[in-house]
C-alpha cells in the first residue's frame, strides 16, 4: 500500500490531494479569482496561496482521515508555471517532507495531468491533448518519454480564451473559460476567423477575438494528425480547457469517424488539483524515483519530454 500526498499551485489554483493505490482519498482546492477584466499576477497569486495553503493541507489530511505518519511520499509541482506561486508551495512540501521524515518528489505539472487522466479514465495508451491556460500540447507516449508531437507556437488556447474574456469583461468566477462556454451555447452566428494550423502545431495569438469553434477545430485537426502518425485509437483530453463540453463534442465526432475512443475527466480532475500531482508522484515513487532537497528547486520552464517515464514500458 502506497500513500502519496501531492501539492499543486503553479497557476491560480492551490490544491493538495492524497492518493492511496489509485484511490483519491481527498482533493481540496482553492482558486484565486480576480475581478472581471483582470488576469492574475504572480505576486498576488503567491500571496493568495500563502494565505490558505496550511488550511488546505489540514483539510486534505482530515478529509482523508489520515495522520502524517500514514503518508509514504510528499510530491509537489517542480514546474512549469509561475515562479512565485511555485516557490510558495514547494517551501511547504519541503518542510513537511523533513518534519514527517518522508521522501520528496518533484513532479512535472503536465505529467500530473496525464497520469490523472490515465488513472480516472483507464485509457490504455491514448494520444493526449493537453489544453489549459498555460499549456497546449499534443502528446504521445513512446519509449520512456511523453513526446510532444505538436504544440502552440505562441500562446496557450486557454490563455487566448482568458484574454478574450478579459476584453469583454466576462466574470472570472468560477473561471473565464466556463463563462465563455455558457455564453457560446446561446450563440447562433458563426464568424470566420484566422484558422492557423502549421503541420503539427497551432498559433492562437491571431485569433484573440474568440470563437470556440475555430480554436477547437484547430485542436481537433492536430490531434487527428498525431493519431494518424502513431496509429492510435484513443484520445485523452486533460487540462482545464478539457472541461469544455463543446471541445469534447467536436473531438468525439472526429473519434467516431475514425472508430477511436474519446476519454476525458470532469472538472475535479481536469482543472489543476493536488491529487494529480500525488498520482504522478505515486507512479514515480513506485518506480524508484526520489528528489533530493538540494535538487528540489522549482522551475518556470519544464518541458513534458524532459522527464524519464520510468513507470511505463
Amino acid at each position, binding site marked *: 500500500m502506497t500513500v502519496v500526498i501531492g501539492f499543486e499551485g503553479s497557476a491560480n489554483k492551490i490544491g493538495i490531494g492524497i492518493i492511496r493505490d489509485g484511490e483519491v482519498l481527498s482533493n481540496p482546492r482553492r482558486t484565486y479569482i480576480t475581478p472581471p477584466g483582470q488576469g492574475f499576477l504572480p505576486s498576488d497569486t503567491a500571496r493568495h496561496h500563502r494565505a490558505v495553503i496550511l488550511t488546505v493541507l489540514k483539510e486534505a489530511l482530515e478529509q482523508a482521515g489520515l495522520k502524517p505518519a500514514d503518508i509514504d511520499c510528499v510530491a509537489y509541482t517542480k514546474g512549469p508555471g509561475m515562479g512565485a506561486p511555485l516557490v510558495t508551495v514547494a*517551501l511547504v512540501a519541503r518542510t513537511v517532507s523533513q518534519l514527517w*521524515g518522508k521522501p520528496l518528489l518533484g513532479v512535472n505539472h503536465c505529467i500530473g495531468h496525464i497520469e490523472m487522466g490515465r488513472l480516472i479514465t483507464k485509457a490504455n495508451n491514448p494520444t493526449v491533448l493537453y489544453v489549459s491556460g498555460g499549456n497546449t500540447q499534443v502528446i504521445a507516449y513512446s519509449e520512456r518519454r511523453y513526446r510532444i508531437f505538436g504544440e502552440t507556437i505562441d500562446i496557450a488556447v486557454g490563455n487566448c480564451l482568458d484574454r478574450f474574456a478579459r476584453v469583454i469583461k466576462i466574470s472570472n468566477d468560477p473561471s473565464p473559460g466556463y463563462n465563455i462556454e455558457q455564453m457560446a451555447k446561446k450563440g447562433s452566428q458563426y464568424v470566420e476567423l484566422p484558422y492557423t494550423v502549421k503541420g503539427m502545431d497551432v498559433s492562437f495569438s491571431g485569433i484573440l477575438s474568440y470563437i470556440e469553434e475555430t480554436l477547437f477545430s484547430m485542436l481537433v485537426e492536430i490531434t487527428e494528425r498525431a493519431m494518424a502518425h502513431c496509429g492510435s485509437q484513443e484520445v485523452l483530453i486533460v487540462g482545464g480547457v478539457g472541461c469544455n463540453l463543446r471541445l469534447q463534442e467536436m473531438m468525439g465526432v472526429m473519434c467516431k469517424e475514425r472508430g477511436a475512443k474519446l476519454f476525458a475527466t470532469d472538472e475535479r480532475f481536469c482543472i489543476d488539483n493536488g491529487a494529480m500531482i500525488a498520482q504522478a508522484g505515486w507512479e514515480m515513487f513506485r518506480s524508484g524515483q526520489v528528489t533530493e*532537497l*538540494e535538487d*528540489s528547486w522549482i522551475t518556470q520552464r519544464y518541458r513534458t519530454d524532459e522527464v524519464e517515464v520510468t513507470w511505463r514500458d
Partner: protein
Amino acid sequence: GTPRGQGRATQLSSPFPVCSLDVPFPSSREATIALRSLSPDKEPRKGGISKLITVSGSTLSVRWSADEARILRVSVNSFLDHLSLVMETMEMFGPPVAV
C-alpha cells in the same frame, strides 16, 4: 518556542548594500530543516544580488550583498515571507519526527 530574528541593513562603510539576519530556532535540527527548505530555489533575479544561508548551532544565518539597495530590499522582503511560511508550517505540523 517561536523563533525570533535580528536583522541589520547597512550601507555605511561598504560600497554595496549588505544585510545580515540571524534567526534562533529551538534546535539545530529545526534550523537545518529551515535551511534545506529555503536554499534550493535560485534568486528570481539573475545578477546584482548574492545571498548565503548557513546554520551554526541552532541559528539560521543569512548574509546578502547587492548592487543596489532596491535589489537588496526585494530579496530580503521575499526571504522574510518565505521564512515566515516555513516557520508557520513547522509550528503547525512539527515537531520533527524522531530520526
